[in-house]
């Protein structure tokens, strides 16, 4: 096999595995949009806030690394609830742009809180899964990214069970499809929305820890790229579709890595956003979503 072919396959594998981090973030965007028909642009920074809180608790308690996950999940769930209250529940309903802009404000607010708390310095983040590298023939695979991919699948499975096999899921689907009818049936819109924000926040907590350990550090620099990539992932996969977010994230990862290899860093993002435009023009519903008219 030529060097070029080896490299192309290596990029494919790297992109596929790293794309799972986009998938995890994309799930949060897509789920909130699916239920509320609104964007929560503070989701990426919610994930980051969960990871930072976990790191802080770990430092303070000197506890085991396993502590990272429950603390991040709890903290990000709480931040998710705050975002729901501040950016959605308390916003006037007559101004559709208000919640969107409020989440932009929340993104930069949380980001700046992190900057002030850390002086903007990158903080080393432990790797609970270690830094295993696997030799697969001539290719190298990162164990932590493989684990992240499995977690994305696991999260998808849990969410599927939650949405299709529980009363909360039934209520969520009702609110998503016919909010007025759902309310007439006695479903509390406020409670369902809050539950969705807490659950997506908790997923963000898992994503934050996994991304922090994969990157090896936390930095406020991460929040904006996570937001943009999560949003692109959700659009590629189809807004509202959880399997779509996973496939969209993996696709985005692969396109980025191949573009980086073939065209260099200066063109990587151009190719990525070109792909986004192509989808928006020719398949606005994404891979798994439905086209809205």
């Amino acid at each position, binding site marked *: 096999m030529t060097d070029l072919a080896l490299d192309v396959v290596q990029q494919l594998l790297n992109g596929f595995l790293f794309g799972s981090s986009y998938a995890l973030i994309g799930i949060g965007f897509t789920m909130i949009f699916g239920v509320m028909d609104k964007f929560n642009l503070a989701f990426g920074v919610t994930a980051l806030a969960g990871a930072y809180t976990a790191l802080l608790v770990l430092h303070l308690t000197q506890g085991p690394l396993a502590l990272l996950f429950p603390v991040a999940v709890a903290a990000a769930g709480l931040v998710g609830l705050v975002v729901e209250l501040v950016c959605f529940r308390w916003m006037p309903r007559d101004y559709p742009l208000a919640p969107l802009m409020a989440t932009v404000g929340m993104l930069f607010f949380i980001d*700046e809180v992190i900057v002030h708390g850390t*002086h*903007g*310095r*990158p903080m*080393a983040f432990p790797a609970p899964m270690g*830094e295993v590298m696997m030799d697969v023939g001539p290719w190298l695979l*990162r164990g932590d990214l493989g684990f992240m991919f499995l977690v994305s699948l696991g999260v998808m499975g849990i969410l599927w069970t939650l949405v299709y096999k529980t009363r909360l899921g039934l209520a969520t689907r009702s609110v998503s499809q016919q909010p007025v009818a759902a309310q007439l049936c006695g479903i509390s819109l406020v409670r369902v929305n809050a539950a969705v924000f807490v659950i997506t926040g908790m997923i963000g907590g898992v994503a934050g820890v996994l991304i922090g350990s994969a*990157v*090896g550090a936390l930095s406020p620099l991460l929040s904006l790229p996570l937001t943009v990539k999560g949003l692109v992932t959700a659009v590629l996969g189809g807004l509202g579709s959880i399997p779509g977010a996973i496939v969209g994230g993996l696709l985005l990862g692969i396109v980025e890595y191949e573009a980086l290899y073939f065209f260099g860093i200066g063109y990587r993002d151009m190719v990525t956003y070109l792909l986004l435009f192509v989808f928006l023009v020719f398949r606005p519903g994404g891979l798994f979503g439905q086209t809205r008219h």
Partner: protein
Amino acid sequence: MRRMVTAALALLFVVGLLPALAPAPAAAQERVVKIAGTGAMSGVIRGFGVNSKAVFDMVVDEVNAAGGIKLADGTRAKIATTWLDERCNAEEGISVVRKLASEDWLVLIGPTCSNVAEPLFGILQRKVGDAGDSGLQFPIFTDTAIKPGLAKISEWAFRNVPHEPTMYTHLFKWLKEKHPDLKTVYGGVEKDFAHSNSNRGTMDAAAKAAGFEVMGWEEWLLADTEFSTQIGKMRRAKPDIVAISAHPFTTCGVLREMKRQGVKPKLMVGLTSTATLETMAGCGPEAEGLIIPSGFAPVTPEAKRVADIVAKKYKGNVDLHSAAVFENVLVLKRVIETSGVEAKPGTLQKDRQRVREGLAKVKEFDGLLGKVKRTEDRESVKPYVFAVAKNSDWAVLFDPR
């Protein structure tokens, strides 16, 4: 008639009383020398601004405690300060400086970022005395923004930053002498940051001048988190030396990826701005052996003293950037005392010109590591050391002073 006389007397009484109620004349007030500072106090570069401000507060407190600055008429004036956030953003930096220049600040220390300094110097008057140039006539003495050659933009711009071409030329020459068996260098650069991107050319030229073969440069962006593609190419090239022109966040990411992929060059060289505690906090173990030329290390009694006080009392770190603030304030003190600055309300613009002229005349001053020479284009030639990452801390590898 009686009423008119009473009114006139009352008026006279009030008019007579007015001077007593008015504030004391300026001359009788305590005189102050107003020195402003600006640096990145928010955003991801905040750490740089925080350190510069800590050193600024420390040295100003020391000068004031020692009696302040002697003015032209022999009066001693305390230094009054302000420190504003330029957010490492050009528009913000320009807005901050326009505000300070419109007020009664004598001189400015800062900014943090080269991408702020470059456009900022562009709004200053280019040539002193050019009546056709309406640019700001406000002296700026930069401590951190390090991209080479910026002071030549305006005669009101002065800098006290390490001269990277000199340091890297010396470093690569020294490495060649110490390790004649090493032949090849592979570089990596954070492409979207003014300083790191310009330093790529500096490192490349220095390595070639020392006789190394530069095999190539990999590129990434400031916010990138994954470097397997770039490091994969380095792995295949098997260079003797890896040179990284990037700030701590991506330098740490790159070093981690090198470890993962088993890229083990015989030596590693880093960017000056990475010789900080941020790097050690982010990836101390992975950075082991990273060599960086630095304009500061606590290797003299004064440097140790300043570093200790700033760390203990002002909660900051003295590094190659923030150390310059200490030197700048002391140079300004000397210039103000010898150039006839009056610090009176009516002499502001004249005082600014005096400070500019005084700074332009400085040919040498005592820095924390030794004598700092000034060049004709208002830059510094500073003493430096080669620092190396050792046991998650910085140690001096070679002291060429």
